[in-house]
């Protein structure tokens, strides 16, 4: 880089291919971040259509719209698409856009690999989605693809396995890139303990990803050979053990839920101080809490399997370890509250989503503690209670975090202010319909409605109808978000460099929109 003259650098802004090739060949972290975010939104709508089909079928008792096989394909694909297609890529999109700007780096460490990590995703998604059109249809064994059921599936299952392999490879490359960028490319003076919280949460998330994605790859590969090459890893008749799959899967699966929530913690930890105009309370305890959650997340996997049967000591260990996670999570909630305390708050859309996040995520945390207690979990495992629980942490957790971050940084990305009124309308519609959809599901689960069923007993009819109405309201409200984003890209009030009065991180020192190449000369952090 030293050989490049200033003159060339000034012109570098214009020297990139245009049209499709710009996006195919780009190594620019902002372009790649944008592609991740659009990809994620498209997947969000795709998975959303599946969710609405599910809710339409469940609107009334009896089979009306889809048959049971297709229903199972929808629940499975909804889960896979939302997790691997929508939530994870959205956070990687944020990481691409924001990490270099927040640590004062010019780009990601491995720019070409960054391009490759993204471009693996669309083919993987196509592979996964096209499984609907092969004989036997898409995988229908639930997103957890437990054998032996998943061994019974048609070739759609093999396609899903390959898609998971590709997406896993993409995640691992993305994570290596993020770790390297954060560890090597921080601006002079930015020690680890001066990094913005969002960067910290992503650093920890990236380590988790590198740790567990290969484990998932191993599990699905064993499934693949059991299905096609006569191995018996998970077949009891051949000396294998179906429960072993569950152990391996959840060794990936539980850290995975923290992979989906930690970056949201990071976003909220940026947004709350900005709009409270007050520094984040307990920064170092936030860092330690995040790290503790990540470490604990690796030793609690079997709480997903309390009904699979395990020795009493196993159940006790996993119950205690799981309950322990409530401690660092509680610290986070208390710290956010203390950050708001005696601040000078304003309530723009990012702040509304951040407060909505804390409020509803905490409810999801409560139901999480309830699920952690083995005897109660015996009752609620595999019921709508669990559905309600994880949608409280993944929709009003991860997704609200994503919305908060999107509104927060849209002015920086586009150079325009978004429509504040519409943003607030989007928040309130989302908030109301989300609760309408999922709060009643707690009651359904307690009363005894199992999950993944296309039809149900009459006593569950009314809450299901309410939930379906909420779901359609929720789904349609998201089109408003699309409209707000498009409107913001196309125009609107000019956003100043420091869009938010309380913004303290480095990206607010850059003009809005952020130039194509930023921080070619690193800023100095005192």
């Amino acid at each position: 880089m030293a050989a490049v003259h200033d003159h060339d650098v000034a012109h570098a802004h214009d020297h990139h291919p245009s049209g499709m090739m710009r996006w195919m060949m780009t190594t620019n972290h902002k372009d790649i971040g944008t592609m991740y975010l659009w990809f994620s939104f498209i997947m969000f709508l795709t998975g959303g259509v599946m969710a609405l089909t599910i809710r339409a079928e469940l609107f009334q008792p009896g089979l009306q719209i889809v048959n049971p096989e297709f229903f199972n394909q929808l629940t499975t694909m909804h889960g896979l698409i939302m997790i691997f297609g929508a939530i994870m890529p959205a956070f990687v999109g944020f990481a691409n856009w924001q990490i270099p700007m927040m640590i004062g780096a010019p780009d990601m460490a491995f720019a070409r690999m960054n391009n490759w990590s993204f471009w693996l995703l669309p083919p993987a998604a196509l592979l996964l989605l096209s499984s609907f059109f092969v004989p036997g249809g898409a995988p229908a064994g639930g997103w957890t693809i437990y054998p032996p059921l998943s061994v019974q599936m048609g070739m759609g299952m093999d396609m899903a396995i390959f898609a998971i392999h590709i997406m896993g490879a993409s995640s691992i490359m993305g994570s290596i890139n993020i770790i390297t960028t954060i560890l090597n490319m921080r601006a002079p003076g930015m020690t680890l303990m001066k990094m913005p919280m969002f960067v910290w949460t992503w650093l920890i998330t990236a380590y988790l990803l590198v740790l567990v994605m290969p484990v998932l790859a191993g599990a699905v590969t064993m499934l693949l050979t059991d299905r096609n090459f006569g191995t018996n890893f998970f077949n009891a008749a051949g000396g294998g053990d179906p429960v072993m799959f569950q152990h391996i899967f959840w060794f990936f699966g539980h850290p995975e839920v923290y992979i989906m929530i930690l970056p949201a913690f990071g976003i909220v930890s940026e947004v709350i101080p900005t709009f409270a105009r007050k520094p984040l309370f307990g920064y170092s305890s936030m860092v330690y809490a995040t790290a503790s959650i990540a470490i604990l997340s690796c030793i609690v996997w079997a709480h997903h399997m309390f009904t699979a049967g395990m020795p009493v000591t196993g159940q006790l260990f996993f119950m205690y370890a799981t309950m322990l996670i409530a401690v660092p999570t509680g610290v986070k909630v208390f710290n956010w509250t203390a950050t708001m305390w005696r601040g000078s708050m304003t309530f723009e859309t990012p702040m509304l989503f951040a407060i909505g996040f804390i409020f509803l995520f905490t409810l999801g945390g409560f139901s999480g503690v309830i699920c952690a207690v083995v005897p109660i979990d015996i009752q609620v495992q595999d019921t709508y209670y669990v559905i309600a629980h994880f949608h409280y942490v993944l929709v009003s957790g991860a997704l609200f975090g994503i919305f908060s971050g999107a509104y927060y940084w849209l002015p920086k990305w586009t150079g325009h202010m978004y429509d504040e009124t519409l943003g607030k309308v989007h928040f309130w519609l989302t908030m109301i319909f989300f609760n309408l959809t999922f709060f009643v599901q707690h009651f359904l689960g307690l009363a005894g409605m199992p999950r993944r069923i296309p039809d149900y007993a009459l006593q569950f009819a009314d809450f299901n109808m309410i939930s379906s109405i909420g779901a359609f309201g929720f789904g349609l409200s998201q089109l408003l978000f699309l409209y707000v984003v498009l409107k913001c890209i196309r125009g609107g009030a000019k956003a100043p460099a420091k869009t938010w009065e309380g913004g303290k991180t480095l990206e607010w020192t850059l003009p809005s929109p952020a130039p194509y190449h930023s921080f070619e000369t690193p800023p100095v952090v005192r």
Partner: protein
Amino acid sequence: MRPVTHCGILELLARTVISNQVGGNMSSKAAASIVGMMAIALYSGLGMAAADPYQLNLPEPQTIIARQIYDQHTMLLWICLAIFIGVFGVMFYSVLKHRKSVGYKAANFHHSTTVEIIWTIIPFFILVGMAFPATKTIIAMKDTSSPDITIKTTGYQWKWGYDYLTGEGEGISFLSNLATPRAQIENASPKEENYLLEVDNPVVVPVGKKVRIIITANDVLHAWWVPALGVKQDAIPGYIRDAWFTIDKPGTYRGQCAELCGKDHGFMPIVVEAVEPEKYTQWVAEQKSKSAAAVVDVSKEFTMDELKAEGEKVYAANCVACHQANGKGIPGTFAALDGSKVATGPKAGHIDIVMNGKTGTAMAAFKHLSDVQIAAVVTYERNAWGNAAGDVVQPSEINEFRK
């Protein structure tokens, strides 16, 4: 059709008060329903009551374990509610008062080690308080020793099989299928009260006796779950798990399969009928005489018509879910039998696949059916729809095949 009763919050309050008066042990549930009611009033504002369709809580517990679960859940709800009020009381006070629009100036504090240590330690002790009773219950749940009756249940796609192994009733064995007519599921006739929660042969157990239930599966994972008994245990092919319950009072307790097991996962309910011990003895006697009457000499020769008639019944109970009534299966998912190579080819291959299943597909082994049943269903399949193999499979051939 559906028993919909829209009543108001007031009625719910009345019900709560009534249930408070019924007995001292009801108070915890009343408390839970108040919590639930507050929650629903807060969140949906729809003003619904806790009549059956709006059941907000776990079902009325019928065993000691279910009772403990119920009470622990109620306790946890109260603790969560207290924390909720504490945390969000502070937060919403702050949201109301500490806002720029009312001219509040931001303070600049950013940490306090003392406070941070306090709010790390207090939750820890709250959790210990929650874990203590749970630990005792877990240990009690696992104690399946010295049962009065042991019943093995096997999950099949998509029904449950029961074998009474020890204790009174030893030797009784039957399958338990969904009894709801197809027409109700397809909305062709009105749905009745126990829609999807009714079976042809319920599990009958005596009250006051410790029943150990051994759980396994034949094909894929299932889970045996009856909420009122506080029992849920996955059924795992090739592995055995167990659980226990002692039911306090007679009644019919309904549950469902709780682990995704394929197409008809939602259609394999569990019904447990708890009866007085004398009635149980009576039931056992009936079952024994029924099975004695059903014993057939395997060497007996049947006619084609007899086998086809019996085979059609066996087919309807075991095969129709996948292969369909018209024998055409579901293209791409479940193989057709009408015109298939197996059903029109040599008998031996056909018998083999019925008895041993086909690995890597949804076709399970049906060895557990009787010789007569297998002979009948194979004969039926070879001579139904467009198939006209014309041959008859006798029970003796199946018996021979087993050896």
